[in-house]
């Protein structure tokens, strides 16, 4: 596939996603919630941080030429060193005769002499791929099953309940490891494995809410007017459970990023050479035991990860408060 086509597809996909979200958020209830969110300074700040980090990740997905993404192009002046160097050092690290470096590095360089700050920014791409791809798989699946179970009840609900209680019976981390062992390493496989466990919580939540919504008079009224089940589900139920799906997706995103670090630590996660925060944290096992310790790669990676996950969690909480001011 030529580069311009893959870039175009990527951007078109993102635009479609944003348009879809906007369409769902065009209900009276969502507009009131967004107005409430606008007054929540913490929520807005977190949304901005998440947006910036994800845009950096997106910038790394858009290729200029086969070997360079937009992010690489922006940092093309950062030279590559021969090995470790401390943050902002002028000479290379821990050698008998320290050699002068080719440039200054904000967060130092790693074993291969790559700039740690740039690698950390590139970790946004991996986080975006893991979180985004997994969400694209599990959210439609989990939400659909939940709505079907909650709306049709009886035997449909029995099947949905059976499916999620069976999947929930296998401890999540063990299932993840087992699936990754059988499928092999790779980001796409990790997305499949993670979505196998991620849909359970969403499905349970949506099923419960659909149960409540389906008993309300407006659904009965729509039935009385002769609307079909599919019309009621898509135009009446779905907009009323959508806020739960969005909140769950945001909180779930942070869980996926955290799960990536555990899988990478266990050796069944991102393949070696992927610029991911999990791999950077994992390699600190060796780096911290050196004398003197190489502390900057893990600090940089966990700092960025902490920023993203914390912002996602706080944003999710803010959204929940905005949509349901009484409960929070």
């Amino acid at each position, binding site marked *: 596939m030529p580069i311009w086509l893959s870039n175009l597809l990527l951007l078109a996909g993102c635009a479609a996603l944003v348009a879809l979200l906007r369409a769902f958020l065009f209900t009276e209830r969502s507009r009131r919630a967004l107005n409430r969110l606008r007054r929540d300074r913490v929520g807005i700040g977190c949304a901005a941080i998440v947006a910036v980090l994800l845009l950096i990740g997106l910038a790394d997905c858009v290729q200029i030429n086969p070997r360079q993404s937009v992010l690489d192009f922006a940092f093309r002046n950062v030279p590559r060193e021969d090995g470790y160097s401390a943050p902002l050092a002028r000479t290379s690290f821990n050698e008998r005769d320290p050699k002068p470096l080719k440039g200054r590095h904000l967060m130092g360089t790693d074993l291969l002499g790559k700039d740690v700050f740039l690698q950390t920014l590139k970790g946004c791409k991996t986080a975006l791929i893991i979180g985004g791809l997994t969400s694209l798989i599990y959210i439609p699946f989990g939400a659909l099953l939940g709505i079907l179970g909650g709306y049709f009840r009886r035997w449909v609900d029995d099947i949905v309940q*059976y499916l999620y*209680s*069976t*999947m*929930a*019976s*296998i*401890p999540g*981390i*063990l*299932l993840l*490891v*087992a*699936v990754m*062992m*059988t*499928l092999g390493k790779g980001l796409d496989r990790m997305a499949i494995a993670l979505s196998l466990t991620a849909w359970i919580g969403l499905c349970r939540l949506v099923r419960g809410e659909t149960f409540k919504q389906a008993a309300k008079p407006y659904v009965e009224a729509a039935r009385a007017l002769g609307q079909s089940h599919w019309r009621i589900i898509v135009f009446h139920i779905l907009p009323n459970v959508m806020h739960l799906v969005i909140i769950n997706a945001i909180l779930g995103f*942070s869980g996926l990023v*955290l799960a990536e*670090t*555990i899988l990478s*630590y*266990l*050796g*069944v996660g991102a393949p070696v050479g992927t610029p991911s925060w*999990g791999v950077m*944290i*994992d390699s*600190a*096992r060796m780096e*911290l035991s050196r004398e003197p*310790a190489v502390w900057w790669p*893990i600090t940089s990676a*966990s700092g960025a*990860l*902490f920023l993203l*996950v*914390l912002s996602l*969690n*706080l944003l999710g*909480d803010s959204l929940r408060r905005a949509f349901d001011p009484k409960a929070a």
Partner: protein
Amino acid sequence: MLNYLIRRILYMVPILLGVMFITFALFNIVNTPRQVAYRILGPKASVQAIDNWLNNHGYLDEQGKELPLFFNVGAHPFDSLYFRSMGRFATFDLGRSFATDEPVITMIKRGAIPSLCITLPAFVVGLFLSLSASLLLVFVRDSLIDRWGTVLCVAGMSIPITVYVIFGQWIAGNLFPWFPAFGFNLEGFSTARFIALPVVIMIVSGLGSDVRMYRAIFLEEVRAEYIRTAQAKGASHTRVLLVHMLKNGMISVITLVVASLPFLIMGTLVLESFFGIPGLGNLMQNAIQTSDFGVIQADVYFGSLLYLFGLLVTDICYAAADPRIRLQ
């Protein structure tokens, strides 16, 4: 009560069958036994060696032919991989390790004590700390302390367990060199020295999410009407919180806690391998490193059994506490 118990157990049979099927599918359909054999013996193994391995692990029938997946057309119809492994699962035979040929059940028995040495103290102390902290937050609810306490909890949740472990060991190892950073010894006082660091790290890493969860549970209770009644009757703020609310709130807490009790045996995946504790988490980590599918399969199944057992005990506790449940 007996009636209720029997109904709960019967309800678990289809779920257990589903779990067995997923485990079987992962290790026999996604990866065929022949592929597994090549992964363990190496890609250059002779056909004879592969056949020998398959025969030793029960994948071949008496004539030395490969067993079909589901139905054995021509011979005995149920003499297939699926029904053979169902038979093993149903009799709780966990099989043997592919790497050392040791029965997995003896490996689990050996690893249970070291695992419990870490998880049990961490669980008890962690539960006490998080319950007290969440009660404190509920006591001063809607104040500045509550707001920042909650943010602190979210921050604690946003740090991956790998960072807690890697950074925690490094910092603690530098601050308190008396506590060994690696190893395990089951001899009285020296055990305490070895488990001190992992236990502290496990408590700290779980504190954030636990406090937040218990706070949410207690806040739900605080809004109940019996609280208002108690306050109207003139009971003091402290008494309402510690006597009236705690009693009712503990029902939800105990449900959560009892369900997680059986998992204490499973140990912790990340912590044990890092601190060199020969528990079940370490067993799993070794199995991942050596592609020991026998142990991983057994571990997944064992974990699911523990989960279902925990669910059953929770149901019993619930029914004992609230007789109305039994009738539903």
